[in-house]
């Protein structure tokens, strides 16, 4: 029994434990301020808001595990939101979600091809795709005055709570999360992702089609961002320009706070979940305390640096 517990504890590594510990501390500190911080309703509300960031971070995590980064998140989220609502206007509401996600997949595919085939550093190539996506969206709104209001299904998915009073968005995040955990732990693809993050050349020499794995991860990242954009459009009832701008830094921060190494090869999905909840909760508590934006930004930065100094330090160079 004790051995089992130790094994269970071992599988939760230090960053994840610290991140969850910090979440508990945040909640307790918040409850000193107002008892409503511990109410089920407040916690569910937090999970609902965290779900959008959770979807984005899931894709970002896959790309970071490879040792790459995806800076096209902001406008791929926007593409998802704006193209889904536009598709509803063009061909009817049933096309909204598939088309929004499809557009994210297309941009993700271009990201993947640029990084895997052309070997342009992902940092700069995804930045270029971000600019292109922005250009396409500006052109899109300017020319046709397209529909921008979300369909009832999008609103239902993002806002409503059906089963057991749990928000639907949380279910979507949970489904995606389970799929990613299974992929990372139980499929060759997942193993290849970690392997590429550790040593791409060695993985290639082992006979893995590394290009295909890289393209797949960028496609998944584009898909996750666009899906989050679709839901965000549902949450705020419409898709609009720059709606994804506030999500890039929190998404990367959530993944890294969850213990995923920014240079790839190491990290667990549970950590990313912890990071997402931590970031969302921190933002929520600071806004409830009516902290001005300036203070929020400073605290936010200090928390990231502080937590990483506790468990994210690199090795000393010794030759």
């Amino acid at each position, binding site marked *: 029994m004790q051995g089992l517990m130790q094994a269970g504890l071992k599988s939760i590594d230090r960053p994840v434990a610290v991140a969850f510990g910090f979440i508990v501390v945040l909640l307790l500190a918040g409850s000193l301020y107002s008892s409503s911080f511990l109410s089920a309703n407040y916690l569910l509300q937090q999970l609902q808001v965290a779900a959008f960031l959770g979807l984005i971070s899931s894709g970002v995590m896959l790309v970071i595990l490879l040792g790459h*980064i995806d*800076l096209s998140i902001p406008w791929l989220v926007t593409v998802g939101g704006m193209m889904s609502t536009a598709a509803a206007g063009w061909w009817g509401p049933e096309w909204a979600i598939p088309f929004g996600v499809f557009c994210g997949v297309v941009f993700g595919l271009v990201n993947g091809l*640029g990084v895997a*085939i*052309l*070997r*342009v*550093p992902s*940092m*700069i*190539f995804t*930045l*270029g*795709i*971000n*600019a*292109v*996506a*922005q*250009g*396409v969206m*500006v*052109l899109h709104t*300017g*020319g046709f005055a397209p529909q921008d209001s979300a369909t009832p299904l999008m609103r239902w998915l993002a806002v409503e709570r059906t089963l057991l009073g749990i928000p639907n968005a949380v279910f979507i995040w949970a489904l995606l999360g389970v799929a990613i955990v299974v992929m990372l732990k139980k499929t060759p693809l997942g193993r290849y992702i970690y392997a590429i993050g550790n040593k*791409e*050349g060695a993985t*290639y*020499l082992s006979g893995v089609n590394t290009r295909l794995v890289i393209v797949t991860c960028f496609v998944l990242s584009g898909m996750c961002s666009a899906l989050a954009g679709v839901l965000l459009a549902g949450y705020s009832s419409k898709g609009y320009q720059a709606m994804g*701008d506030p999500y890039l*830094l929190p998404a*990367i*921060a959530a993944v*890294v706070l969850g213990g995923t190494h*920014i*240079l790839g090869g190491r990290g667990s999905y549970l950590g990313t979940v912890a990071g997402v909840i931590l970031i969302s909760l921190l933002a929520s508590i600071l806004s409830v305390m009516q902290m*001005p*934006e*300036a*203070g*929020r*930004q*400073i*605290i*936010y*930065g*200090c928390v*990231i*640096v502080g937590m*990483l*100094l506790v468990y*994210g*330090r*690199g*090795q*000393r*160079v*010794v*030759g």
Partner: protein
Amino acid sequence: MSAPSGTLADWRLRLGQSQGALIAVAVFLAMFSLYIANHPAGLTVPVVTTAANKAVLLALVAMAQTLPVLTGGLDLSVGMVFVMTNCLASTIVSGEPWQVALGIVAVLLAGAAAGFVNGAIVVYGRLQPIITTLATGAIYYGIALLLRPVPGGDVDPDLADFMTYTVFGETVPTALVLLLAVVILIWLPFRNSVVGRGCYAVGSSEGAAYMSGVAIGRSRLAAYTLAGLLAGVAGLMLTFVTFSGEASAPIGGTYTLNSIAAVVIGGTSLYGGAGGAIGSIFGAFILRTIDDLLFVFDLPPLWQPLFQGVVLLGAVSLGAARVFRVKNRLELFN
């Protein structure tokens, strides 16, 4: 190893090393000629001065970005330091001449201090530069908001006019003189110093640099600190151009991202160890001239962002040519 200086082989080596920067210079000259040829006013001092004032801001931020990139790192906070020093300058660079002078020194020190904090966390905290500067960027943006919750402020008008117009009998834009001064007084001495060479060594191979006795910590720290200082110079210049300060996250983000693009276009490797700030200056000029070209060719405004994006993507993909030249695919994995 290296050829004796002054010989033909030495020059060939040097030319080869600055190939990226030379291409950037050539592309810029071609684009700027095209711009001037199609500009209704032609090559006049006001046209060049306007172009220079805009371009020098990005050029300074791109120079700042170059230093951490050379060490194999990255500074995602460089745009926020730029915004923070802009807000600070709009608060303290006015009044009596001695107050103005003191204000300028304080602004530059603030920029350098921000860079030093980045460097200290990267070197002594041993955190990854990307995530460190992502976090400190949020802190510097918060400080900018504290300094200037709403856009506004003031700057010494005589000095601002002087810095944004011309010198030498109204022929040369002051901004270009400032840029040249920064290159001659800061960049060239730094590159030729032991610490500056250490930055290249760390970026090429940290382990080898350590074994050769290079002070890797000191080199890194100097690179980030100098990056903060240069971003501070840019922030000061922005205040002279706009006569005010604004804590704007979009401005900071845009400058950070464009600075990375400028560094890459200017021939500096994102993996570190090769390139230089002069190339980045021309990379920045190229990015700015693209905007100006769109203006003179009367491209419909709606198409401009897309066109800019496609050009940016194309420019950064140029390096992909090497992929089709390698004979052994293993060479790609490093």
